[in-house]
């Protein structure tokens, strides 16, 4: 298949190097959309190696990137009007920051990739611009020791590269900071949603099957009505944890994600109560309070992985308290709900 983002090639002392477009077309946008929705995301890769943007020569800058196509697209589309080399590392199709955390975007891979691409023959200088978020995996002084290349940490966001270069390769404090804006959070929601959705479907099926239980035995009619209602509540609890919490993250009280999720779940309970959706019997109402808050708290806690500021120690700390409570609440809730079938 012809890759449309590759526009041609340049002859160099180190062989033929493919040139890439610095604009994003409809196919790139469609690919990005699918990746954002977790469709074929692990296969959304490009071949590691050296690429050229514009018409670079031996004095042009070298920018390092990951072989996740979304990362690569963001980078190349930020290079409008610049002549640069792009050194793409093999990160197994993972973005720069996550790959740096795993070590695949790392010192050894940079050193090896420099050799494999014959970069030293192609360029005259010995500088690499590495995205700042690659730093957890890259030791700049080690790269220097093993390859002779000086690592210059570029800005966090590719969109700041032009300003960074104009500024004599100096990043402002703002360029060095990771944010977690409404937009940052919203693009992460679909993946969280898709990842959890199969569990939601599974739970809904179980509730559907059990919903038909009542004092007189089993009724398919009851299973359909009570099952639909249960599925709707489960879905709302899931949406609360996967969409409402990420969107309202700065404004929900507390610092731990599980607590934010719990509070959002309670808000949903109140809304359900006010809207007349509450259960008639007290046991079942109590069951739903426990189940809904357990789901919203757990799914919100899962958003820690997508966030840009949670630490391992912190997540472990909140999990030590939250996970036993979530398990207890959901088991008690389901038990009460089953008992409620017979009341």
């Amino acid at each position: 298949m012809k890759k449309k983002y590759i526009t041609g090639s340049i002859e160099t002392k180190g062989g033929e190097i493919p040139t890439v477009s610095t604009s994003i077309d409809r196919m790139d946008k469609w690919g990005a959309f699918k990746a954002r929705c977790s469709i074929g995301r692990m296969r959304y890769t490009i071949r590691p190696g050296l690429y050229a943007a514009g018409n670079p020569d031996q004095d042009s800058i070298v920018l390092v990137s990951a072989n996740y196509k979304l990362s690569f697209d963001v980078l190349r589309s930020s290079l409008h009007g610049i002549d640069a080399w792009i050194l793409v590392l093999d990160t197994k199709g993972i973005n720069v920051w996550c790959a740096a955390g795993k070590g695949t975007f790392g010192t050894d891979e940079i050193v090896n990739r420099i050799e494999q691409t014959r970069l030293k023959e192609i360029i005259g200088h010995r500088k690499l611009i590495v995205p700042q978020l690659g730093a957890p995996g890259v030791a700049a002084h080690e790269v220097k020791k093993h390859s002779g290349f000086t690592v210059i940490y570029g800005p966090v966001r590719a969109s700041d590269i032009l300003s960074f270069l104009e500024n004599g390769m100096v990043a402002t404090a703002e360029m060095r900071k990771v944010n977690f804006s409404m937009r940052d959070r919203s693009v992460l929601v679909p993946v969280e949603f898709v990842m959890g959705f199969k569990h939601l479907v599974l739970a809904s099926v179980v509730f559907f099957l059990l919903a038909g239980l009542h004092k007189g035995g089993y009724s398919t009619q009851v299973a359909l009505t009570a099952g639909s209602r249960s599925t709707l509540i489960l879905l709302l609890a899931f949406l609360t944890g996967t969409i409402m919490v990420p969107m309202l993250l700065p404004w929900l009280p507390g610092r731990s994600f599980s607590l934010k999720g719990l509070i959002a779940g309670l808000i949903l309970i109140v809304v359900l109560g006010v809207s007349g959706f509450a259960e008639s019997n007290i046991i079942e109402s109590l069951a739903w309070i426990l189940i809904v808050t357990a789901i919203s708290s757990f799914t919100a806690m899962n958003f820690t992985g997508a966030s840009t500021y949670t630490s391992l120690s912190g997540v472990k700390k909140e999990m030590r308290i939250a996970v036993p409570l979530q398990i207890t609440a959901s088991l008690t809730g389901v038990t009460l709900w089953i008992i409620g079938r017979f009341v």
Partner: protein
Amino acid sequence: MKYLRNVATLKLDAERCIGCGVCSTVCPHAVFDIIGKKARIVDKDSCMECGACARNCPACAITVKSGVGCAAGIIAGMLRGTEPACDEGCCG
């Protein structure tokens, strides 16, 4: 937005620090500042334990127990009996 207080495992050995400033360059949360030719931790509660500073410190003056601040990764690690690790297909 800030995460939990007093949890970060970040430590800086001022004796070893050579004041090169690479820690403050790579930190995505402005945890460090360079004061009087020495690095100083000025906002420890913002540390997300990514490990960029420790990895890049040429003087080995920084220690941090780095890892993924990710509940799903911690659960996956517990189930597999490994360190917390991102699942394939999670980080895109």
